[in-house]
């Protein structure tokens, strides 16, 4: 009897969580009207430039963070670095830190490099993601070291070994990192609010700030249009995401 009630409680709890997660999506879909879509896609000037800009920023962040994560993971795995576990521990700590703790150091760094209010201010801080490096390293841990050593007998070029031997085995993880970092770049909110002031450099994710009370209803239509690229990306790389995340372990 107790087990039965326990199961019922768990199901109710799961239902509540599911409703809380789905409610914003359902609200967005039901509140958007055809007139709003017409307004956004035909009448307004800002949607298309902001959409392509957001997509470009997200793609740059996705590709850049994959490159950085692959190189960092290869270095940690095959570079015979001492205290690798210590570095991984620091990465784990950084992963757990909220974004707000690194906003000010990033702001000071960008200010000193005169990159504030430029596109680079949105891309550069996101390239070295601890999550991406950690995930890539964990996946690379499953790549046998013997393969690397065998390839060293053929060629001395680490870059060639990376491209011919390691990367083909890492496809799933590369796709997973790209999808995650693309989603993070497409949905970032704090960085555009603090690092850029020009209206033309603000992506769609901070649109709510610039909409007035007269046209705030357009945000539902924009929300749906922004969800579609994410859904398509997830649809393409669903298997790779599952495989890539499966290697994430402490």
């Amino acid at each position: 009897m107790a087990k039965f009630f326990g199961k019922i409680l768990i199901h109710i709890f799961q239902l509540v969580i599911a409703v809380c997660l789905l409610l914003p999506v359902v609200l967005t879909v039901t509140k958007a009207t055809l007139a709003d879509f017409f307004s956004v896609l035909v009448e307004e000037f800002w949607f298309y430039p902001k959409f392509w800009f957001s997509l470009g920023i997200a793609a740059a962040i996705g590709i850049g963070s994959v490159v950085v994560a692959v190189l960092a993971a290869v270095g940690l795995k095959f570079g015979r670095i001492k205290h690798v576990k210590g570095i991984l521990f620091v990465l784990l700590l950084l992963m757990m830190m909220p974004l707000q703790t690194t906003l000010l150091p990033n702001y000071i760094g960008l200010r000193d490099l005169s990159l504030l209010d430029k596109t680079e201010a949105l891309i550069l801080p996101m390239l070295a993601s601890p999550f991406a490096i950690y995930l890539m390293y964990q996946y690379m841990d499953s790549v046998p070291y013997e393969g690397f050593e065998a390839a060293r007998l053929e060629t001395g070029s680490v870059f060639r070994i990376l491209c011919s031997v390691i990367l083909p085995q890492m496809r799933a993880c590369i796709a997973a990192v790209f999808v995650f970092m693309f989603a993070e770049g497409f949905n970032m909110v704090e960085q555009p609010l603090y690092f850029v002031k020009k209206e033309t450099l603000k992506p769609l994710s901070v649109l709510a700030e610039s909409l007035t009370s007269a046209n705030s209803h357009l945000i539902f239509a924009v929300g749906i249009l922004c969800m579609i690229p994410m859904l398509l990306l997830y649809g393409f790389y669903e298997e790779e995401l599952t495989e890539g995340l499966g290697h994430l372990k402490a």
Partner: protein
Amino acid sequence: MRKKVLCLLTALFFGLLLLGTLFHQKIDCMFREHVTVVNPKPHQEKVTKTWEKNGEEHRIITEETFLLIPKEAVQYNMIYVLETVEVPYGSYEVVRLKGVETAGETGDYVKVTRGLKEKDRVVDVFSESLENEERVVAEE
């Protein structure tokens, strides 16, 4: 099969967005009211004014400048003036209702004394279908 459907949907979505990026302004123009605008023409006229003082009639001739706009542009001393609104990424035009003071007609034109500037762009026909601050497409 699933990947094929996803490829098709992706191509459709981004294709439509690309078409929208290139042609949305042209499509928007199709749904807007088209208006023709004219610039007011400056017109100078000698005006004789008379007044009586101590039983004597005095006359003075002054040269006054009016702005001429088509008769059809004015209704109940109101006209529509075209204004350009600048927004990020572009601009569009709206019509605004403006009150003017007139001083009679001359031919097909009305003489405007106040409420209008020479560089204002006036809608040549006052239309009941137009609304204040409505977005329009101007044809000059």
